[in-house]
């Protein structure tokens, strides 16, 4: 049987060709089959929505927006670009192939161009096969993606992402400005740290663990794990549950 990838395409309503009937699976006779969810702007796609879509069983997520300068909301497309880049970095940490997510531009395109974009993505996802979240090929993937989702749901990364425009565009009150590279590095570090912390938090929900145990499950250096644990305690993400011998055991706290 040929693999039919489950693809959700979030399409900005300004670049959806009028011929496309979003209620039926086949866009137009002979053209490829994906499910389209229409949104006002590609910039509307909250990273949470994309990850949730993967968790719900999609094999691929496509975001279609308008190219600069066609964006109806002036820079919604750039917002989408930043969010997708951020998500791809995060996905790389989870084991869910970042290639399963793609952002494409299709401003005021013809049905043929639009179908071409979808076809290309569909072929790519087909070559990647069923999502590991569905096939359960990798036991840690569900935890990883859940942690990633927790990262994008929480303040730290969202506020950094939301400030990108301000931090790299304008100077702050001290006349400083981050270069794009500096910002990207900051982003990278934040994504990694946040990902690990949320993973630790999810691991310890209702199941207190020692630093060594966490390090073993998460595949990390115990010393680095300890750093994160200390940081997380300060932030109120986890707390000391009990001590066995001289080993402290930690458990997660509800965030927020």
């Amino acid at each position: 049987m040929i693999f039919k990838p489950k693809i959700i395409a979030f399409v900005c309503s300004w670049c959806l060709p009028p011929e496309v009937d979003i209620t039926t699976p086949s866009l137009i006779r002979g053209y490829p089959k994906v499910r389209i969810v229409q949104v006002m702007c590609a910039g509307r796609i909250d990273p949470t929505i994309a990850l949730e879509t993967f968790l719900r069983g999609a094999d691929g997520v496509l975001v279609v927006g308008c190219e600069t300068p066609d964006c109806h909301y002036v820079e919604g497309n750039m917002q989408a670009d930043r969010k997708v880049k951020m998500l791809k970095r995060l996905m790389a940490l989870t084991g869910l192939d970042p290639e399963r997510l793609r952002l494409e531009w299709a401003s005021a395109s013809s049905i043929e161009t639009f179908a071409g974009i979808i076809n290309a993505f569909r072929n790519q996802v087909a070559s990647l096969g069923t999502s590991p979240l569905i096939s359960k090929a990798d036991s840690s993937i569900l935890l990883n993606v859940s942690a990633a989702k927790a990262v994008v749901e929480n303040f730290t990364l969202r506020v950094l992402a939301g400030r990108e425009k301000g931090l790299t565009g304008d100077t702050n009150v001290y006349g400083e400005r981050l270069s794009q590279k500096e910002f990207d590095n900051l982003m990278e570090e934040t994504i990694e740290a946040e990902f690990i912390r949320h993973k630790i938090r999810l691991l310890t929900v209702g199941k207190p663990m020692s630093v060594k145990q966490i390090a073993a499950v998460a595949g990390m250096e115990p010393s680095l794990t300890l750093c994160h644990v200390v940081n997380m305690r300060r932030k109120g993400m986890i707390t000391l549950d009990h001590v066995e011998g001289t080993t402290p055991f930690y458990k997660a706290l509800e965030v927020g």
Partner: protein
Amino acid sequence: MMATSNAPKSKRKLPPCRVACPAGINVQGYIALLQQGKFKESVELIRKTMPFPAICGRVCFSPCQDACSRKNVDQPVGIRYLKRLASDIEREQGRISPVSIPKKHDEKVAIVGAGPAGLSCAYELAKLGYPVTVFERMHAPGGMMRYGIPDYRLQKYVVDNEIAYIRDLGVEIKTEVEFGKDITLDKLQKDGYKAVFIGIGAQTSQKLGVTGEDLKGVFPAVEFLRDISLGETTSVGERVAVIGGGNTAIDAARTSLRLGAREVLILYRRSQEEMPALPAEIEAAEEEGVQFHFMVAPKQIIGEGGKVKAVECLRMQLREPDQSGRKRPTPIQGSEHTYEVDSIIPAIGQLLEASCLPQAILDKSGRAIPADPMTLESSISGVFVGGDAVTGPASVIEAVGAGKRAAESIDRYLNGKDLKVGRDVETEETAWTKDWDKLTKKPERYTVSHVDVGRQKVSFKEADELLVKIRKLAMAEARRCLECGPCSECLGGEEMCEADKAVVDEALCTGCNVCAVNCPFSAIKKDERGVAAVDEELCKGCGICSASCPERAISMKKCADAQIMSSVMSALEREFV
């Protein structure tokens, strides 16, 4: 004559295109619908404010375009062409007949003159549910739209179509009824008409006032154009001199070319800068080979055997501006020179035919109708006047504006309301200002007027053939609109448009300002309490703030995250093929 805005004003900010339109068409609204390819809907939207989308799409002098904010970035949006294209597509697809409006009132209203002013007035009153009868002297309605504007600019079928819509709305049009002869004000009152609108236009060409004006071969422009429209054959000979610099002069010149004249001169007493004709029209005339002679005025017409032989002219020089603001031309002594011509078309102005009107309505000179500029009520109570009859020769859209204003006055008059209270007293500047830096990112795009429209050279066929083929281009052109006005301009509400609004959960908002930084329209700002507040007029519903809010405190009214996820889930549940 410069257009003054009669557009409804309020404290609500309006886009400059709408403010500039004498009929107050919500331009941004129909442009927004065009962006989505909703051609029919956009024409329907125009019809909410005026009945002539196809006509104005062809002949309007488009003050909206002159006011368009896009000119601050590159070039204004090609609004007139877009309107025309939308109406062409509507005609192609078949127009939906108007919903019949129940007669809510018994008071009959008579309209004298089926030109743009009279018909607009009738249209507005019919929409309000009044029984309206229009009386027209000629054999078909349309006024100057039919008998003044030549076919190559405005085909008769276009006029017919638009008038058919007004008829479908229940307006009765009686043609070949002459005011002053077949009907009078007294007779109308006796017949039970409770209010009258007079929009008889300015139907007589102004005389040059030089000797030789009665010679054979002198064709006053208005009468000349009317005869051509009526299908009468007029021979203008080989060389024609048109005198004047307005649109009528250009129309007469281009018409003469189409009648077989080999050489057509336009003699104008000021310079090209002062010409009141539309620049596009001047350009088209030049392209067709019309020769312009500026700074000349006729001194006398020389005849031979009772027929025009030549026109003797004087050179002019421009002096300090007169009351109209244009430089006053004065003749240079001894600069006489002649142009040998076969016919002369004076097109220096048009006058009201006052003879058909009762003396009581005219001013002391007996040549003009005084009217209240706001209500358009004449000196006779219950009789309203508007259009060219009051302003002198102007444009279709200004006449439409006058007709609409008169209709409101008549509605108030018949309901015993004050004619003036609450009308147009707001003088606050309503034009919109925006963060231009943000917008200059959008570079110049296609302009429909740049498209080679295959202008027909010398024929009575419609010039500027705009094809439906360029529909896609039109949508792209419409997207050049900067949307300076609020989002609800299309009046469509939720069923027309998917526009959404952001809502802030104040309990969650930490005042981090991320939303304010990221909103492309500065529609969300911290209020005095430090909590994000959405300006619904500015919010266009893109949802960027919702997707960026670090505390996820912002949601969208219609398309919240939960709604998107439920679409995703129902999509995933279905079969993938």
